[in-house]
């Protein structure tokens, strides 16, 4: 039987939307889907090696912009962020209720061999170098390649 396939475009760098993307990715991989996770634009915040506010990238504006955006440790909640307090409170609530936290979901996706890809154009705009994103990224690609990999499966944009 041919494997079913799910391809997710992780566009948002919001905490809650990343939780949704990684929940779907790891859950689908666990029930034997082939899963592609394509990080683009704000989604890059989830795959930078430096997880805090850091001057990632080349060029003054890129460095400044990346510093403001930060990384996985400070992704904001899409609503009611309260200057970054909410994602921490939410993580506490998730732990208390024994629901997987964002780092646990990412680790699950990794363990289940979800294919991680990153957008070439965003990389150029944000001035990020290959060595500044996590090595799990299998390939830096564009629209045509993404469509090729997504063909025959379901596609979600989060």
């Amino acid at each position, binding site marked *: *039987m041919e494997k079913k396939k799910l391809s997710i475009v992780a566009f948002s760098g919001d905490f809650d939307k990343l939780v949704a993307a990684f*929940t*779907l990715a*790891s*859950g689908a*991989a*666990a*029930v*034997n889907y082939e899963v592609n996770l394509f990080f683009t634009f704000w989604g890059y915040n989830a795959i930078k090696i430096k997880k805090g506010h850091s001057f990632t990238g080349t060029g003054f504006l890129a460095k400044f912009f990346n510093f403001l955006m930060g990384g996985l440790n400070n992704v904001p909640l899409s609503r009611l962020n309260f200057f970054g307090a909410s994602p921490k409170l939410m993580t506490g609530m998730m732990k208390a*209720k*024994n*629901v*997987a936290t964002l780092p*646990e*979901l990412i680790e*699950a996706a990794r*363990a*289940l061999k979800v294919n991680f890809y990153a957008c070439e154009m965003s990389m150029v705009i944000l001035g990020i170098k290959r060595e500044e994103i996590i090595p799990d990224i299998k390939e830096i690609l564009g629209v045509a390649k993404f469509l090729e990999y997504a063909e025959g499966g379901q596609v979600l944009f989060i």
Partner: protein
Amino acid sequence: MNTYKLDITKEHCPMTFVKTKLQLEKLNTGDRLEVLLTEGEPLENVPKSSVEQGYKLIETVNVGGTIHKVVLEK
């Protein structure tokens, strides 16, 4: 032939599936995995998706209340 045990009664989606799948991947042919899980989505879908992946469903036993034991074999 080894028998492994996994308790996912305290887990929620998607970790119920994730933990089962990661444990199933460790099995050698003939090994069994006994999964303790709760009624609802885990009971409906953990055995189903495991069978879809080629594992054998040996039995499902209610071990008390809403907890069930699902025995899978590679």
